């Protein structure tokens, strides 16, 4: 078993969903039940393999890559098929493997207009392959390919099953992210040509991420690093999304079908922050140091701007989308400190945001289904009409605003704290200012979330929905899809060490080699 996992585990976990998608293509569209079962089976199989990998993972050596595969791929450009799992990849891979099956379950009786579950599930499985692959790829070109594989399925998910303005939103999403990744690819190529072996001074000409983080930009002039980092900054920053590249996000979220929003918020955004942690910061330490104050600045602008924008929203889904901008600001602030403390907080923040905001989008989808609107003004009294759902909304809002004891807290609080003492060489006063501003952001977050809760869950039901038969409490499929996430919120809130202990050795390892 261990041999199998060592050689094939990561390949299997990445491509099992794709195999499932290929099998589904051969099944006629009329066999809806069979198609759903196949999709569930494929995503559960991937989760099972992921679970085995996590059981077999040597947590004592979370800092080193395990289950590494290194095979020939594109020899003419010296790019190889390298996969590996360490403490940074593991929580994010696990998040993906859990969220996708839950989305399949949720979609069981929630296929959005215009139907066609076959295509919907196939796209979801292709997405899963792209996301898992991105988190375990250890070669820049392989990473790039997986990073891009998610674009098309998401484009179609928004474009076909989205809301009224879906065409605009889907093309905007596609163009923004492609623009970022085109510049990112240029930066990867610059790294390829400029990285040198510090011992011999010879050009490395490799895309191997392990080697590139070990040499950590040796031989690349400081000024050049700043430029290369700029390319990655735009590439990953669009995906995160960081202010001012965030404008695609509210549109995409508002128009996307529920499951699309969940996957987008829970996982796709993390591809960007993961790129910063895994690639940009360790491979270009000097460039990162030059950019860190600016990243911190954009991060806190994002926190405040996102929160203020939330206060002005009239649409529940759009509000949650803007709250993502704010939350990802905390993650980016943690990364900008360039300390192991800050980056650990950032990774925790990614997982926590994935669970919590994913859950919020699930709720938004269910609200839309019951009330046929997400206009906050028209909602109200959910605690009366659907008390369990109202309570879940309250619980998740508390988690989202960073209530201690729930998962959201451990993403935000350490990130703010880490800004108190950023890495050596960074302007301390500037970061302490950021810290204060970010702290104000948490107050605003409490403001918009409580206000949302007050307007939607409390009070008496509005007249137009008072007698609506569509407003029912949480259904069985919803329970199945939601309970794991709710458990995760409590579990990681009470025992944050579950994640910190895994990420810490890997983060320290990355930063040490970079120093």
């Amino acid at each position: 078993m261990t041999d199998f996992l060592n050689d094939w585990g990561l390949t299997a976990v990445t491509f099992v969903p794709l195999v499932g998608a290929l099998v589904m293509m051969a099944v006629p569209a009329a066999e809806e039940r069979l198609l759903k079962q196949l999709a569930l089976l494929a995503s559960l199989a991937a989760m099972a393999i992921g679970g085995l990998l996590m059981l077999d993972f040597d947590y004592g050596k979370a800092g080193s890559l395990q289950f590494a595969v290194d095979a020939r791929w594109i020899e003419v450009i010296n790019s190889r098929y390298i996969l590996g799992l360490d403490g940074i990849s593991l929580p994010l891979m696990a998040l993906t493997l859990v969220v996708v099956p839950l989305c399949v379950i949720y979609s069981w009786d929630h296929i959005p207009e215009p139907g066609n579950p076959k295509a919907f599930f196939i796209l979801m499985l292709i997405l899963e392959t792209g996301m898992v692959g991105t988190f375990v790829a250890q070669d820049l070109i392989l990473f790039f390919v997986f990073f891009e594989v998610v674009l098309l399925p998401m484009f179609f998910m928004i474009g076909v099953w989205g809301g009224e303005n879906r065409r605009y939103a889907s093309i905007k999403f596609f163009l923004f992210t492609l623009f970022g990744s085109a510049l990112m690819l240029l930066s990867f190529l610059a790294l390829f040509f400029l990285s040198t072996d510090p011992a011999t001074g010879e050009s490395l000409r490799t895309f191997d991420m392990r080697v590139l983080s070990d040499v950590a930009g040796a031989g690349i002039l400081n000024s050049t690093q700043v430029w290369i980092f700029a390319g990655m900054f735009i590439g990953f920053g669009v995906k995160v999304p960081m202010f001012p590249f965030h404008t695609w996000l509210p549109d995409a979220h508002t128009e996307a079908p529920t499951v699309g929003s969940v996957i987008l918020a829970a996982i796709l955004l993390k591809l960007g922050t993961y790129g910063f942690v895994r690639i940009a910061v360790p491979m270009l330490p000097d460039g990162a140091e030059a950019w860190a104050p600016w990243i911190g600045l954009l991060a806190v602008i994002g926190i405040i701007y996102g929160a203020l924008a939330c206060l002005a929203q009239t649409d529940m889904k759009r509000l949650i989308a803007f709250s993502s901008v704010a939350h990802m600001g905390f993650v980016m602030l943690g990364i900008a400190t360039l300390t192991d403390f800050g980056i650990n907080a950032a990774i925790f923040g990614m997982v926590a945001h994935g669970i919590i905001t994913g859950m919020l989008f699930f709720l938004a989808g269910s609200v839309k289904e019951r009330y046929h609107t997400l206009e906050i003004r028209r909602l109200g009294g959910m605690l009366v009409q659907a008390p369990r759902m109202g309570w879940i909304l309250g619980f998740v809002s508390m988690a989202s605003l960073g209530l201690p004891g729930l998962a959201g807290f451990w993403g935000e609080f350490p990130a703010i704290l880490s800004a108190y003492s950023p890495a050596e060489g960074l302007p301390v006063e500037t970061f302490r200012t950021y810290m204060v501003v970010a702290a104000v952001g948490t107050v605003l977050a409490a403001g918009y979330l409580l206000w949302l809760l007050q307007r939607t869950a409390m009070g008496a039901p509005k007249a137009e929905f008072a007698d609506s038969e569509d407003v029912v409490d949480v259904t069985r499929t919803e329970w199945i899809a939601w309970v794991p996430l709710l458990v995760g919120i409590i579990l990681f809130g009470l025992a944050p060490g579950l994640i910190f202990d895994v990420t810490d050795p890997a983060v320290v390892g990355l930063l040490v080699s970079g120093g």
Partner: protein
Amino acid sequence: MLGSVLTLAFERPAIDWHAVAPELTLLGFGALLTLVDIVWLERGRAVVSALASFGLLASMVPILTLAWDGADRSTFWGAYVIDDYALVMKAVFLLAGYVVVLLSTNYIAEGDYWENEYYQMLLSAVLGMVVMASARDLVTIFVALELLSIPAYLMATWRKRDLRSNEAGLKYYLMGVFASAVLLYGMSLLYGTTGSTMLTDIDAVVSGGGAPLAVVTLGVIFVVVGFGFKVSAFPFHTWAPDTYEGAPTPVTAFLSVASKAAGFVALLSLVFVGFWGRADVYQPLMWALAAASMFGGNLMALRQTNVVRLLAYSGVAQAGYMLAPLAVAGESLATADDALSAVVTYLAIYAAMNLGAFAVIIAVARRTASAEIGSYKGLFRYSPGLAVAMTIFLMALAGIPPLGGWYAKFEIVLALISPGTAWGVALGVIVAVNSVIALYYYARIASHMWVETPPESVDFDTTTPIKVPTSVTAALVLTGAATLAFGILPQWVGHFTDVSLVAALAG
């Protein structure tokens, strides 16, 4: 006495029959087609397309044996060279030609057009391209160019009862002969100043500084402009949209892929063998042409409402991508190899994805009788297979991984960045920016097919799947498989396109 004069006057060159076997096979099948036409008249129609495709595939056999043999060959006093580069390009031409036959079979037969002659023309055009891949001498290049162009002019007018097709052919013809004249003038300048038509001799004089700069510059400019028409680089692209739209669609596919590739092959031979040392002359020229083609092609494509015209402009932009590596090709021997490999890779992958896109256009037009983008609305609803295929080809053209086009663009950018010059990096950024612009119009078609609902007030059926003829299905499968394989396992194409024309200089 007379006998000795005659033998002196004509010295028969030592011909390497194996080296020219692909050309001879093709020629043989062309002659066979003519015979079939003469002997069986109308009854021959049934077999001509099969015969033509068999001829194209049969010509692949000597290519494979030559590749197996592996040795570089040179015949006709060095004017005709068989090396890895020539073999790869010949294979691309023959396979592209084969796919075009698959696309033409139903189109030409059902349209009640001349069939025998059509396939004869097609074979002789492919013959010209195959010759072009080996041509290393100005006269051979020119003969090959005319051999591939003249049949193409005729093929563009094949729908002779349609005014647009006549216009297409006439425009193509006039622009083509004009380009030929410009090209010949440039060649005469190069010949005049170097005293030889052999590219290697020209290089020795030109790169050695043995020729006046002004004359060399003019010669290079005219030659490049001449081929600029053939590859439809901006601003010499003006014939392309009208010709593409008016010509029969399989012919358009042929022009946009094979004919463009042939122009590139000639350009590559000229640059890398003929005047590689004069980077100061051709690099700025290529830079400007590449940048103008990318921006010009992409910006004009944004406003198109007809898929074929859109692909014509996108083809202008694609020509820009392929010209780009030539703007840094002269930096070093290593860069020259990178640049050549990049262009050859691009040509091979471009052939697969563009032919695939035309295959879908032909299939859809059988139902809609239109190539307007609006007629693609809701295609996914009633013909999901074709919609998925079209999406794959369009996104490959846009360069989205894991579809073939990404690797083609990647190689281009790799070659541009490798020398580390500011001009190269700047062009790399331009390629990146243009990929994003291009995505918009490709995604717009995809969005029509997937997002919109089928149009209601049209005179065609939007409820049942479109029936695709077997030969077009075969073309779709071939090009689709190639597009996917090139993207997921780029080594397959990268292995073959890792070629060099300047290796001799390095030795």
